[in-house]
């Protein structure tokens, strides 16, 4: 049976994963795009992204675009797998109600 994932379940991290998993595998979004989409502050998002990165669920790709530093974020295949498991666990809790 699928299990809930404590790292993912936190509200901001859950929404981060939902946004990243809805992209095509390999697609990356800019930090500011994700911040605007989630309506959170830079610091808040940065802290949650670090936790997800440490868990191996997302990948941060730091690069330069027109000499400006940019961070692109994508879900790893492990992140996609555990997110799917988390969703299945949530669905099974509702079904068992």
């Amino acid at each position, binding site marked *: 049976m699928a*299990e*809930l*994932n*404590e790292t993912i*379940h936190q*509200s901001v991290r*859950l*929404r981060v994963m*939902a*946004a990243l*998993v*809805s*992209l*095509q595998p*390999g*697609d*990356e*979004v*800019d930090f*500011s*795009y994700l911040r605007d*989409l*989630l309506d959170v502050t830079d610091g808040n998002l940065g802290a949650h992204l670090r936790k997800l990165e440490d868990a191996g669920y997302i990948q941060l790709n730091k690069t330069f*675009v027109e000499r400006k530093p940019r961070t*692109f974020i994508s879900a790893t295949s492990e992140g996609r797998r555990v997110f799917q498991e988390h*969703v299945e666990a*949530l*669905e099974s*809790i*509702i079904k*068992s*109600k």
Partner: protein
Amino acid sequence: MDISPNEAEEALEAIQIMTQKTRHSIASSGAHISLIITGIVWMIGFLATQFLQGVIVFYIWVGASVLGAALGFMLNIRNNKRMRSPTAGATAKRIGAIWVLLAVYCLAALAVTWPLDGMQLTVLIILFVLVGWLVMGLLLSIISIWPGLIIIALVLIGYFFLPDYFYLWLAILGGGGMIALGLYIRFRW
């Protein structure tokens, strides 16, 4: 980790909302920019066509179109830098090829049907552009087909039923409609 069924339901709802928001955001990325700019160009150009005469109309159309195309290109490039995709290059090439082929087909059709009056020429060019829009919608975002179909309907209504006010009709309903739709996508979608 244990949570109640209510908490699970809330979490699933949050996931669903976020997934939908992300898909809408990707599907509409840049669409509002193109819609607003094209709407402004239409409004200026068709108002000039309705109320002015002579070579000035041609210069207004060329000036508005060139400025609009340059502005749209710059804003879309800036907007597209927020997402990177390994398959984007191939998709962009296919989209470019579709527009080039459509432009060639449009020119061929105009050459075969020539001579045309101003209204016929306007309607044919708009219809070709909107066919391109529909193809883009089928490829990239099904939902964006609807504004294209509405604009086609408005253009045909104006052409067949309001020939005396055709350009005014296109300026207000076509151009104004595009601006309104672009603003709606930007702020409410």
